[in-house]
């Protein structure tokens, strides 16, 4: 699969049975459909989180193609109204694209990741400060 942002081939990372697609060049993360639920280890909570995503009103970010079906992905606000985190979602449900640092921002939001397990895991996978470096960009 190629990175939807910079077109470089993505590599697959696996740690403790969790597998994610990662672009070495731009630091983005692609999660296949269902992979986020797997990450949260709870289908209900995963669904809740995904349902809470709203279509972003306006975004200056460029539209990106889904790496699986190449359809233009929708811009989704996964953050709060006043603090938006714009991620990309495939209209056909193939998966979600997070730019560098966006995934931990989304998961940091409230009660979703109670014991901060995923954040820890992500910090495990990616060097902690690199992950948080692009906060508030």
């Amino acid at each position: 699969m190629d990175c939807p942002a910079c077109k470089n081939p993505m590599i697959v990372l696996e740690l403790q049975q969790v597998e994610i697609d990662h672009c070495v060049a731009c630091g983005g993360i692609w999660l296949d459909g269902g992979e986020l639920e797997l990450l949260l280890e709870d289908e209900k909570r995963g669904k809740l989180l995904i349902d809470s995503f709203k279509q972003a009103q306006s975004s200056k970010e460029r539209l990106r193609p889904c790496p699986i079906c190449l359809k233009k992905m929708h811009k989704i606000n996964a953050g709060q109204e006043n603090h938006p985190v714009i991620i990309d979602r495939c209209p056909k449900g193939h998966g979600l694209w997070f730019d560098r640092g966006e995934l931990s921002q989304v998961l940091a939001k409230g009660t979703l990741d109670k014991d901060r397990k995923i954040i820890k895991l992500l910090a495990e996978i990616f060097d902690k400060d690199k992950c948080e470096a692009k906060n508030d960009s």
Partner: protein
Amino acid sequence: MAVVLGTLGWVIGMAASPDPMAGVFGLVIALIVWMILAMVSFTGGDAILLASSKAVPVTKDMHPQLFNVVEEMAIAAQLPVPKVYVINDPAPNAFATGRSPQSASIAVTAGLLGRLNRDELQGVIGHEMSHILHRDILFVTVAGVMLGAITLIAEVFLRGMFYSSMGRRYSSRGKGSGQAQAIMLLIAIVAAILAPIMATLLYFALSRKREYLADAGSARLTRYPEGLACALEKISQNTVPLSVANKVTAPMYIVNPLQKEGMKLSDLTSTHPPISERIKILRSMSGASFIDYSDAFKKTTKLTAPIPSSALTAEKPVSVRGSSSPQTSATAKSQQRSIGDIMFKTNGFSFVNCSCGLKMKIPPNFTASQVKCPRCGQVLPIS
């Protein structure tokens, strides 16, 4: 089946012209169509089938257990070890193909590997191996192609009729022969509709019989009928239809790949016997020989077992062995991952394991010769 094919050709020939030779001509055409199709499938049928089901060859280091089990069954059946393929599909299923035991192939889906333990896998491979041993793979090729030829001829004729009937309405014909011709035409249309159905029923009856025989063969080869019974049970719980199967290839699989949940196919039109019945027979076997299967079959279905009497006479008792399955403590998730890894490997991914514990799977189109571990920053070469 050949009779159905011949009759169809003859009747269509007769319908086309009043000349009695036309019937023979039609018959010859039908046989030629069949021969061409048979030749294509005989020389390249297995390759076409494997390619159409997107099977990729695997080597021993990708899945040692699958390879070992295939080798074990080849030894038990005293056949050369067939080529092994994996199909990247979550639906659990398997099939065997090839012209002869010397050039046979066995294909299993990733879903099958992910779900079954060693004994169950052995049961399934034993089933496929006995298809090879009984030369069912050739039967499916020849009979399947004959079915295809019948369907093709009938279809071409009916379509031809449909289009030409528009023009014929205005053409005048001689009276006497015209009437006989019209009757013959009617018969031909009926034949063209009935022939594919008849051939299909025949084909299905034959292939069901062979499924039972392969089950019996698997029990005998593995000496452990419970393995196949468990495997069939697990496979039957699956609700995803196999996406790479179609009507022609369906009879080759260990269970019908097209059967959807909630849709009960009637006994006559199914290529496979009901799974529950197959499991019941396997579970009521008192030994592992053909005789035991035959007895269990009679007890369960009240019918005579579809096992040739020659196989029953030259049998000495085969005792059932104990389970040898390694009950791996692996979770479903990790099994899923290991199956995923097989698919990555077959797709040309190379694996890099960093000393920090992170596993990287590098796609074949990744151009750099080294990769920096995003976890610990180590730069690792890509082999």
